[in-house]
């Protein structure tokens, strides 16, 4: 190990944190002039997953005394371990945000064990007691925002057919498709959602094909869960269909066709994290939240959204924000006719059963395998 590359300030921070840490359990190194490293799996201007994080990083850049270093297109291999080490050794980073799901285990865990005085915050991972205390995972219940999108889509569709371009049939994606469909059926119980899985997170050609084939089948409102919604949004708008966005606000790509969208609110969360550290508090290792906790948000409504849709959507949004509304409330049937959530059972946002979702609800046309 080349500790000669670590600056004196960094060492001082480290030892200060060690002293604090021994007194108060786990406390991260933090001082006013801190370097924070952000690592993205794709390009940071992808109008999608990575851009959402880059917007969060941009919010940190505006805070005084913080230096943000960023690296994009880092694969989920040992390359990300080396990127983290390089940010630590060459840039003096003390707080790291490796933002892609596949960075968590084994890569970020390995680095958190190797640098016990530094803080690692991961998006999407499931931190457990076995993982290092200086590591944490955060994520948002973005299905709440998808539910609102669904309501707006349900009012806006003329054909009653919605389309969902999805990456893989994994729990997070299924939960979004289901929430979107439940929202839409709240507005109009006859609505169906046709889901197409492209098989991977970034498949622009397949996403465009899926978009076109959905529109050919009469779908007139589309949304998606892929890393970069740009392909779907632009193609759908060109074909005259309406869209609900995902990850970030894609209204600039299709100002007329954009109804609303489910967005991450990292620009609110990251400054909150930094303020917590600066105040000497520790970030909970397992951090989750939805609309109420301001981890996700809904895009401003587009021109095409009717007053009725706005009113209904705003009403549900207010209830979700107040924490008094449950999306996955029994009875809920899957699209094969089986009851997946029994009558009388409420599965609230934090219910671990929802993290294992492997079904599509009634009204979704498609199969998980």
């Amino acid at each position: 190990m080349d500790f000669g590359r670590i600056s004196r300030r960094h060492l001082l921070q480290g030892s200060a944190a060690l002293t604090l840490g021994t007194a108060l359990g786990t406390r991260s190194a933090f001082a006013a002039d801190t370097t924070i490293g952000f690592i993205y799996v794709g390009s940071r201007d992808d109008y999608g997953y990575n851009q959402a994080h880059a917007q969060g990083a941009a919010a940190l850049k505006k805070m005084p005394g913080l230096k943000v270093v960023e690296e994009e297109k880092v694969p989920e291999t040992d390359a990300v371990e080396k990127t983290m080490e390089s940010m630590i050794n060459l840039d003096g980073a003390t707080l790291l945000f490796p933002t892609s799901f596949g960075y968590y285990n084994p890569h970020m865990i390995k680095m958190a064990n190797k640098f016990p005085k530094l803080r690692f915050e991961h998006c999407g991972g499931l931190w457990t007691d076995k993982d290092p205390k200086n590591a944490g995972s955060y994520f948002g219940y973005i299905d709440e925002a998808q539910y609102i999108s669904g309501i707006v889509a349900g009012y806006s569709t003329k054909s009653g057919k919605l389309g969902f371009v999805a990456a893989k049939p994994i729990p997070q994606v299924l939960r979004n498709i289901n929430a979107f469909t439940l929202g839409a059926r709240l507005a109009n119980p006859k609505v169906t959602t046709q889901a197409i899985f492209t098989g991977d997170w970034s498949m622009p050609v397949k996403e465009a094909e899926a978009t076109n084939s959905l529109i050919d089948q009469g779908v007139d409102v589309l949304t998606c869960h892929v890393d970069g919604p740009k392909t779907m949004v632009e193609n759908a708008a060109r074909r005259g269909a309406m869209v609900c966005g995902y990850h970030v606000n894609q209204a600039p790509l299709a100002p007329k066709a954009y109804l609303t969208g489910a967005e991450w609110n990292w620009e609110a969360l990251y400054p909150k994290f930094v303020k917590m550290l600066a105040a000497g508090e520790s970030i909970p290792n397992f951090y989750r939240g939805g609309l109420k906790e301001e981890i996700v948000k809904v895009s401003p409504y587009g021109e095409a959204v009717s007053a009725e849709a706005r009113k209904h959507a705003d009403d549900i949004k207010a209830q979700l924000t107040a924490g008094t509304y449950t999306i996955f409330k029994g009875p809920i049937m899957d699209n094969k006719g089986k009851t997946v959530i029994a009558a009388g059972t409420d599965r609230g946002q934090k219910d671990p059963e929802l993290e294992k979702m492997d079904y599509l609800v009634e009204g979704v046309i498609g199969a998980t395998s």
Partner: protein
Amino acid sequence: MTSGVGDPAEAVAISPAADPGFLQRHGGTIEYILIPGAALAAALGVFGIFVALFGKSPLDLYFYMYQGAFGTWFSWQNTLTRAAPLILTALCTALPAQLGMVIIGGEGALLIGALAATSAALLMQSAPPFVVQLAMACAGMAGGGLWIMLSGGLRQYRGVNETISSLLLVYIALAILNHLVEGAMRDPASLNKPSTREIGAANMIGSIPGTDVHWGLVFGVIAAVASYILIYHTVFGFAARVAGGNIRAARIVGLGVGKLILTICFLAGASAGLAGMVEVAAVQGRTNANLAAGYGFTGILVAFLARQNPLAIIPVAILLGGISASGGLLQRRLGLPDASVQVLQGIIFVAVLASDALYGRIGFLKGKA
């Protein structure tokens, strides 16, 4: 831009060669060092201009490239870690090239090798770690070897172009991997990132003592040296080169061309398969889509830059490992996008290919004729 004449590096390189006899004896070898070296220098020069057009200082560029790739012990380890898989995947292209075959499917062999190695480890969980590791290596090499042998066989017995078939086999390998990882071999606990079960910490092969660099580097160097000996210092290798020079002549003198093709293709695939095994046993600990990180494709670049010489693959892989290691620093310090590293790789590739035209044309090295 690729003319080596008048390059300062050249003047340094030829200074010990004042004795014309020396030139006669070693002119060929000097050419092989001088011309690619000059091409590399020219490529760096062009890249410097490219960067200057974006308003960044080329001197900063060269400094950060040096610092990020070779400037510190950490940077060296970063470079070597990235070079390790490239040596093995480059052999997958360089070995068949001796027979005049262009195999570009190393990525597929790597994936199949990784799958085979993971399967071996999961099937023999109770065996001692050394036995498991050996079985993983054998399974990985056999899997990768058979995969490329398939391309060789199609060429020999069915007249299918091996370049096309090996490339298409990459996509088949990826589909098989995704199918198994998301189906039969899936660890039910891997909810949002479908993966196989872990091979177990005890079965991991770890790093070379005193470094962070995994054993793949040592395997790669051994494989490259063994390949060099095989090709240039054995009867088998001589036969392969004869067949590569003129396949008809080889048949007329009674060489078993079919057997040569299948054996060489097997060895080539086995190298890439071993790279896959190392990725599992030293880095990821299991198989999932992360393994398709493009090492197989970068390996093609390495093999061509090394002019298909197994020994030259080692320094070229380290060079490309260094370029990719320094890429992060270029992003962070100069604010260059990730694509700039690809631009540099592209310029180097074109410069080295174009410099092929110079062999045998540099006057003062012609003494040997």
